[in-house]
């Protein structure tokens, strides 16, 4: 029966070539546009650390004075002051904890041939590497003792390591960052989580990878240049080390919900204790964000992209209404044929299935077109200079989703017309002809 219905569908398409082509075009464009945006958002909302992200948290404590007006949007500023970061590090109440900030430094290659160049990296504390489970190609991170001793050590990422040392082993060799020699203690295996979740989330969260990591205390001692926002209140004092400038990112690893709630209680205690010292004037309200929630709160996916997704879905919606109307007139036009089939004994269900198959075939054809449109759309996204551009590729689940969406859209669109058509009375139509 299925084959016969396909044959009937083919006849019907032949009779209305232009109408059929228009329907396929509409579904193809709608599905293609939607899938382009869904794919872009899908790759951007991916988990940067699969398997570990569930245990990683950003603690938020707010040392700002009460008078400061709160920002309009709900994006939370988790930046921490140096004294608070040190206090939380020393308290060591989480399984792992690290403070960090971004920085870019001039690097002087040992070989004379290369000109000095700027590279961006992070100043971090020792737990950074085990906490994020960074993959090492050689060597290791450094210890908390190295942090205390302001050790001149550095962990390089694969690109910078290759640029400086080629394929030769680099552990133990030195690299000059700004005006100081650092000993290479580890080389990462091209670690570039997308987005760079641990940094301040901004327009550059995608695409760039930190190329060096060195101890935060060392960077402070050497007064190395920092990147990123620093928010200060009050006047005077040393901005970086003072307790009135927030600029550090802080991450903790907590295995399990029980530990998370324990840590939350600890943060509240810390807040109250600081209030006794005249700090943290705002009402006690510590927050603990899981990694994925944090990325959501920080709008790692730009609002424009979400708007573009809604635009694409709206377009698909209009395309679908269009197809419902076109299918309806197409089916109703065959009232005569349908009533003959009904008079000859076809059940309503048979008519429904037959017309459903016709709609489904249009959906599949539209899906194929939609796939091509989506590939073209993704290609044009990849040509943009955005950091996330290189991520815009379609994977197998997305490919299947495209067909599913097209099929679903056309079956949904076929539902109403098919239902309407199968209610055509058997004989009545014959009489009016």
């Amino acid at each position, binding site marked *: 029966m299925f084959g016969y219905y396909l044959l009937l569908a083919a006849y019907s398409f032949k009779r209305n070539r232009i*109408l059929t082509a228009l329907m396929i075009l509409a579904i193809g464009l709608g599905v293609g546009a939607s899938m382009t945006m869904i794919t872009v958002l899908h790759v951007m909302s991916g988990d940067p650390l699969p398997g570990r992200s569930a245990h990683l948290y950003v603690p938020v404590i707010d040392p700002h004075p009460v008078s400061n007006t709160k920002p309009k949007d709900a994006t939370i500023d988790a930046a921490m002051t140096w004294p608070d970061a040190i206090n939380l590090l020393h308290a060591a109440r989480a399984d792992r904890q690290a403070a960090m900030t971004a920085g870019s430094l001039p690097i002087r290659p040992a070989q004379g041939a290369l000109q000095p160049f700027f590279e961006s990296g992070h100043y971090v504390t020792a737990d950074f590497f085990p906490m994020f489970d960074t993959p090492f190609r050689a060597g290791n991170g450094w210890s908390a003792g190295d942090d205390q001793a302001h050790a001149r050590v550095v962990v390089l990422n694969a690109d910078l390591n290759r640029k400086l040392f080629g394929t030769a082993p680099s552990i133990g060799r030195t690299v000059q960052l700004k005006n100081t020699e650092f000993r290479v203690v580890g080389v990462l295996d091209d670690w570039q989580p997308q987005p760079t979740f641990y940094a301040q989330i901004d327009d550059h969260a995608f695409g760039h990878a930190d190329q060096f990591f060195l101890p935060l205390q060392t960077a402070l001692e050497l007064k190395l240049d920092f990147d990123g926002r620093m928010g200060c209140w009050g006047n005077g004092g040393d901005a970086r080390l003072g307790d009135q400038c927030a600029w550090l990112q802080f991450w903790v690893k907590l295995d399990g919900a029980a530990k998370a709630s324990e840590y939350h209680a600890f943060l509240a205690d810390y807040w109250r204790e600081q209030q006794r010292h005249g700090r943290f004037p705002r009402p006690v309200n510590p927050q603990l964000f899981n990694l994925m929630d944090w990325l959501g709160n920080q709008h790692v996916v730009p609002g424009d992209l979400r708007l573009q997704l809604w635009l694409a879905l709206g377009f698909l919606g209009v395309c679908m209404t269009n197809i419902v109307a076109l299918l309806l007139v197409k089916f109703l036009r065959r009232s005569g044929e349908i009533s003959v089939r009904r008079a000859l004994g076809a059940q309503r269900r048979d008519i429904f299935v037959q017309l459903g198959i016709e709609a489904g075939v249009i959906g599949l054809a539209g899906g194929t077109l939609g796939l091509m449109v989506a590939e073209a759309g993704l290609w044009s996204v990849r040509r943009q200079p955005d950091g996330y551009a290189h991520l815009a590729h379609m994977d197998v689940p997305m490919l299947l989703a495209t067909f599913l969406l097209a099929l679903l859209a056309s079956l949904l669109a076929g539902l109403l017309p098919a239902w309407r058509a199968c209610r055509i009375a058997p004989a009545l139509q014959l009489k009016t002809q």
Partner: protein
Amino acid sequence: MSFPPVIASLARHKLTALLLILQVSLTCAIVCNIAFMLNGRIQQLRQPSGVAEDELVLLESTDLDEKAQPLIRHDADLAALRTLAGVKSAAAVDGLPFNFRDWSNGLSLIPDGPTPAAASVFDGTPDTLATLGLHLVEGRGFLPSEYVPLGSARNWNGIDQVPVTIITRALADKLFPGQDALGKVIYPDEKPVRIVGVVDPLLRPRPHDDGNDYVTVFPMLPDANGVTYVLRTSPQDRERVLAQAAATLNHLHGNRILRHMQSFTQLRDSFFHRDRSMIGLLIAAATGLLFVTALGIAGLANFWVQQRRRSIGIRRAMGATRRNILRYFQVENLLIVSTGIAFGAVLAYGLNMLLMQHYEQPRLPMFYLAIGATALWLLGQLAVLGPALRAASVPPVVATRTT
């Protein structure tokens, strides 16, 4: 032509007519909002930065010397850059519109008072105003005696020593509404700073929620190892001047890194590239929607003409002119599209409310509704014209045939 027969006939195709109305109203709602957003984006794109955009080239230089003396270095570099052919003026600065080097300060009107506004700090060597081509609308420029070092190695303590400032008109209006800002005093930190001039316009280094044009220009000399040199030249000389400037600087002092060498136009373009791609997408989406809707209208009209061939023939045989038939289909389309637009207007405001909630979009002015409605009316009439003409050409003899 009277409405009743048109409506009576549409009532026989309720479902189809409703679907078409739904499609028109969805399209109307989305297209109105797209047109509104488009206008907002284009306004942003066209926003004047306040500097002589076509005449500026920029180089970011970082001195790598361990014992670097930035003030002396900048003076020497600028002296050399000024000798280049085609360079009208040169200055060393930190913040510029669109360059994201933003240092913002809460400003109060009394010591340790509340801060009604935060403004970005622009600093630079004495030629900065002339080089950037800022429009001083009130007051005066800085005097040579007023310049102090920025103090970037000492927590930017220049802000506590600088005696005067020039602020933007927008900031002046915010701080001193209805008053003359000239001669008034503000407290960017602990010490009072007197306003001696007002510029208009001037944008901040990066977008801010509260006032994209709140800027304070201070007579402070950049004294960090990294600095941005701005050269003013003729538009056609920019590329050559940039290349020569880089060569001159490297020749003068090799132990440095030059970065971000570009014209101001390039800086502006990269700042707005997302807005431009958004504009492209918005236009594509609006075109696509209108196109699909036109297809739907034409497709349905076509079907209705075929279905009604016999009745058209009968009407023609009874004396209706071709014009009457043409009008019939045009009025029918007008009726459907107008109903769609009426629903679409409600939907458009609903959509606008969602956008206001999630994307800080302002309220949709009526004007955009008019644009959407006009576009759909025209499109509807255009789409129905072909089928309507075909209907008008149905000969009266059709009435006599039985099939």
